């Protein structure tokens, strides 16, 4: 049974109010939802991901479709939450407060931790070179694993527009990587 089948089963169970259905949906989709929000620069991606799932719970009775459609719908919610959160924060800027280290996800050694931070800084600096739409499309394709059609549905665009954004985004990344390589 592949992950698509698992998602279909979990969705059907959740729609029938079976507890394991929510467990399956969460286990299947929470990592990529949180990753998408984090890669987009959400200051509190875990909290925002929890909001996304709560919104899905509240609206599930209005959802129609299979597991793949649910994934696309969930990322549509995540995208909208991200925009709402960004608007909210721009109106009410807050002083950042340091948080304790997250031991469950932290690398084992200091060297690993440093390497992870370096890799993340490099990836973020490259993502910053993209437009908002290009970054959105690429993160939904790469982290969320959505197809071109699913991304189009989640963002309210058509497939050719998504392909164009994907093409330009990857070309931009290629140029930036080449420039970094030359400058080093």
């Amino acid at each position, binding site marked *: 049974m592949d992950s698509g089948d698992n998602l279909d089963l979990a969705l059907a169970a959740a729609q029938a109010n079976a507890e394991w259905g929510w467990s399956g949906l969460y286990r299947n989709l*929470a*990592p990529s939802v949180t990753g998408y929000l984090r890669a987009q620069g959400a200051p509190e991606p875990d909290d925002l991901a929890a909001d996304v799932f709560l919104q899905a719970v509240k609206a599930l009775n209005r959802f129609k479709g299979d597991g793949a459609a649910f994934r696309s719908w969930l990322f549509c919610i995540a995208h909208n939450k991200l925009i709402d959160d960004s608007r909210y924060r721009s109106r009410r800027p807050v002083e950042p407060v340091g948080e304790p280290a997250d031991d469950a996800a932290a690398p084992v050694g200091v060297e690993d931790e440093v390497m992870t931070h370096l890799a993340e800084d*490099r990836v973020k600096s490259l993502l910053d070179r993209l437009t908002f739409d290009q970054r959105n499309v690429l993160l939904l394709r790469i982290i969320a694993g959505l197809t071109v059609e699913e991304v189009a549905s989640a963002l309210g665009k058509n497939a050719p527009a998504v392909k164009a954004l994907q093409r330009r985004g990857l070309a931009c990344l290629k140029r930036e990587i080449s420039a970094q390589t030359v400058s080093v």
Partner: protein
Amino acid sequence: MEATYISDDACERIIAGSLGADEHELMPVRWLVEDLQSLYNQPVPRAARALHPSTSARPAGSPGIGYSVTRTLRLWGLHPQED
């Protein structure tokens, strides 16, 4: 700046990790895609704590993440199932 064009098919191969041997100039972009996937696909327990802080510390044999999530949702009055 260097002119760059990547076809739609090549975009799909970059994302799928199926570049051909003659497409080595696209490999750095593929490596970036792999970095993105490894950096931003966290295991569930970390994200689950956003919904239920005690999830990561649950003892062996106790209810799993789904139980914690649905229990929390129910406590907040958001889970559709009544018990």
